[in-house]
């Protein structure tokens, strides 16, 4: 997979789940960026990260009814949707941006999500 | 074309005379073709001949392009059917409308129905620009001004030149009304505005909810409008169960009570049942005080009009 996956992590959930993955090989090629909340991840930011060469952006937010800042992950979900639409327009495949609702102890599901994203990116790369 | 000044009549059209004489008038609808096929008009006209006092010639109904109302009206006149020309405010501004009124009169056409007109979104040219320079009530007031004040909208007198005699188009002015449209409580008031603007006769939208129509007529009578305006109740015979459901579900501002649908569902020959129900409805309408006639909108069923009119005991039509 050309370029890595940048994970924009809410520090209250995704960041902790990612940290507790420790040195799991699934994290190869995954660059974790800490945010105060997934609601800080902007559409423009996601697209700019892809522009700079990343293969994918994974936004990790808290489950919507457990969000520390009440509406953070709901806003992030809408912004990811706009980013995906933009990628579809650009013809570069919407799977390059993805949102996952991960609580801080959801480590297995996070690993699964990263694997699924890597697979989707490789599949798309094969096609592109 | 007789150009004599009809004594005491506004326009002297057959429809006007029938209504003035107190007969229960019968008008129908003749939908002009979506092509330049003149023959299609005369075929339909033949069905209606002798069965109706006048026939509405629709003006690009539901915003679908058809032969113009005035042209088709003139052809119907030649077949011995007196037409009711329709003018919608959707497609022409006040200049074009006034010139069409002069034209229609010169061709001997005397009845004009004033309509706001269906929004172009419903027709086959949804991307067209609409006009709506005026609305149906302003159009009624305009025709009255042309007839009675012998003036154009701008105030100029209707004469070929300063010294020429006044030659105004004497039109029997019609309007449409939907007794079931919201806001319900404003509907009678709106008819009052049309009366104030100078409408001579009204044809209502097709009626299925008789209770609500009778309630509307009560409000009309309370305002004494039935004496100032001749009201023709609109009816449309139901050809099939599908048509009944379509009218109920997809036509805005139209309420179709269940008993129409249930009766049709039970009937063997749906078309015959539709005709029978329509005849019964006309008989019931004749009993309502203030209803001066019936407007039979047999959409693409012109051939069954005589049968319905006969069934309702309205033949032969009076000769006035």
């Amino acid at each position, binding site marked *: 997979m050309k370029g890595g996956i940048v994970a924009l992590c809410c520090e209250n959930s995704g960041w902790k789940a990612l*940290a507790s993955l420790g040195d799991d090989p699934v994290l190869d090629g995954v*660059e974790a960026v800490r*945010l105060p909340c997934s609601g*800080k991840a902007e559409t423009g930011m996601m697209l*700019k990260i892809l522009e700079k060469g990343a293969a994918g952006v994974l936004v990790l937010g808290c489950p919507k009814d*457990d969000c520390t800042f009440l509406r953070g992950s709901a*806003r992030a979900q809408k912004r990811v949707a706009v980013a995906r639409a933009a990628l579809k327009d650009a013809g570069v495949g919407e799977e390059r941006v993805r949102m996952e609702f991960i609580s801080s102890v959801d480590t297995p599901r996070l690993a699964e999500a990263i694997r699924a994203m890597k697979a989707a990116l490789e599949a798309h790369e094969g096609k592109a | 074309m007789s150009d004599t000044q009809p004594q005491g009549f506004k326009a002297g059209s057959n429809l006007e005379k029938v209504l003035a004489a107190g007969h229960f008038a019968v008008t129908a609808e003749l939908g002009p073709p979506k092509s330049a096929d003149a023959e299609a008009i005369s075929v339909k006209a033949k069905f209606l001949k002798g069965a109706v006092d006048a026939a509405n010639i629709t003006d690009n109904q539901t915003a679908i392009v058809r032969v113009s109302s005035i042209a088709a009206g003139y052809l119907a006149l030649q077949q011995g059917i007196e037409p009711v020309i329709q003018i919608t405010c959707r497609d022409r501004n006040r200049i074009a409308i006034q010139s069409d009124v002069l034209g229609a009169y010169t061709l001997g056409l005397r009845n004009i129905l004033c309509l706001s007109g269906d929004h172009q979104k419903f027709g086959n040219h949804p991307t067209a620009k609409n006009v709506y320079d005026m609305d149906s009530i302003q159009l009624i007031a305009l025709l009255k001004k042309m007839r009675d004040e012998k003036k154009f909208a701008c105030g100029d007198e209707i004469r070929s030149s300063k010294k020429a005699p006044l030659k105004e188009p004497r039109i029997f002015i019609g309007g449409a009304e939907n007794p079931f449209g919201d806001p319900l409580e404003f509907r009678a008031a709106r008819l009052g505005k049309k009366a104030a603007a100078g409408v001579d006769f009204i044809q209502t939208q097709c009626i299925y909810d008789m209770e609500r129509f009778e309630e509307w007529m009560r409000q009309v009578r309370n305002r004494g409008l039935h004496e100032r305006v001749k009201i023709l109740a609109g009816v449309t015979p139901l050809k099939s169960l599908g048509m009944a459901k379509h009218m109920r579900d997809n036509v805005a501002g139209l309420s179709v009570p269940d008993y129409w649908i249930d009766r049709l569902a039970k009937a063997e020959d749906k078309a015959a049942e539709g005709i029978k129900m329509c005849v019964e409805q006309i008989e019931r309408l004749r009993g309502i005080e203030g209803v001066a006639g019936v407007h039979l909108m047999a959409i693409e069923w012109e051939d069954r009009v005589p049968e319905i009119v006969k069934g309702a005991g309205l033949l032969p039509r009076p000769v006035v």
Partner: protein
Amino acid sequence: MTGIFLCSCLGEVCGRAELEKAAGARVFPGERLCTPQGTASMAVSIREHGVDRALVLGCAAAQVDAVCASLRKAACLGTGRVRALRFAKRGNAEGRAASVRAALAALDLVPEVRTRKTKPNREVLVIGCGATGRAASEALASLGRTALMTEAASVTDIRGSAGRFTVRFRNVGGDGENARTFGALIVAAGLPEPDASRKPFVPGRIIPLADLSDRLSGLSRREFPASLAVVLDMEIDETRAGFEEACRACLDAKSLRPVETWVFLHDARVAGPGLEDLYDRAREAGVQFVKYGGRIRLDAAGSGVKVRARDTVLGEEVEISCGLAAVSGYGLATPADAELTAMLGIGTDALGRLQENNIRLLPELTGRAGIFVAGACRGATYGPDAVRDARNAALSAHELLSRPVETELSHAVVDGDKCALCLTCVRLCPFRAMTVNAEKKQAECVPESCMHCGLCAGECPNKAITLPLWSDGIILALSGAAPDAASVAKEKRP
């Protein structure tokens, strides 16, 4: 000067020289940095070498975060001045160097962050004079804190933030208003009376359960209904308070006159002191409890009321007619008073009650620091629950106001030149931290209310809002997508 602290656990992963070359900064290798001694040794190096920004490289994120927190205290470095970077044991040297450079780039962009201490106003306002409100005031008094109680109806406006709320009241006489400041607000406004004019109520035939007792006591022998039905769980799940009220009302009715009584409910709620016994007494007195499933139909036909429902025990439709029916207000969806909710600026749940659907806020917190909710207005309608709520809220308010409100001034900053006053941030902020500064004609953040979540910055249509510690530049640096110099320079400092 930026210092990199390399923990010994990464010793063999990357050498000091390699790191110094890659990062262009002074490297301080250290022993077991995650231990207190490790942290102390770092603090010493920081003071000795005048380090103002520290990057700690460790093996596991959790430990490294803890180290940063303790290092901030030990070496009194401002927030954000200490950054942690977890080094994966695997990965090549080039990858590690790149992530160090990215972390350092982010560190360079971190501004100086001051904190502000404000003495909170010591008084608490309790909105609602019902049982819950009184319980909250008593709890506050026992904690030695003065409290003012008022009815929700007399409050006209609420502004400010934790420690400094300004509340306006209608004057007692009714003309004009006055304002007072409070440190915290406890909302115990209870549930508004069910509006007797709406469905399913029919005056005189189907009435609110709360009015049943005084209506019956006012009736003469002739007017007294021969039969009476109480309906619970009509629209939403009943509460124990509703169940208790139903049993008491039927027992009261039977004590006045011999009357046939039914109680229609989904199930009996007896989990409370004395409720089981009350339920038994009611049944012994002849009250018939009918458990129904799904919807219940009430028709005020003729002189009486027809009640139809599916009896889940018998498994068939049951229909009775009675002289009078009473429906429990708790079993009806009665949203909190909309005006009060708008003034408070806090979220509500699906039923419109003052309890945002978020487990972090249970039981008495709201989205806004310094505003607490207790009792029926948040759904805790049963007496003992409401009192416990009141005590929780009193304790939380007391705790908040017993120490100065310390605010880290890293709140959202609005660039007045770019702000188009589109109000997106004002409407979006879950904590009502964003307000409109009319003189400056721009949006402006209240530092004390800001929770530094960055939602506003993420949504501003003109990118006029920056969160100093999480600016675009810092985030892009950390994501390996180095920001172009121009966009970094434009970011506003606090």
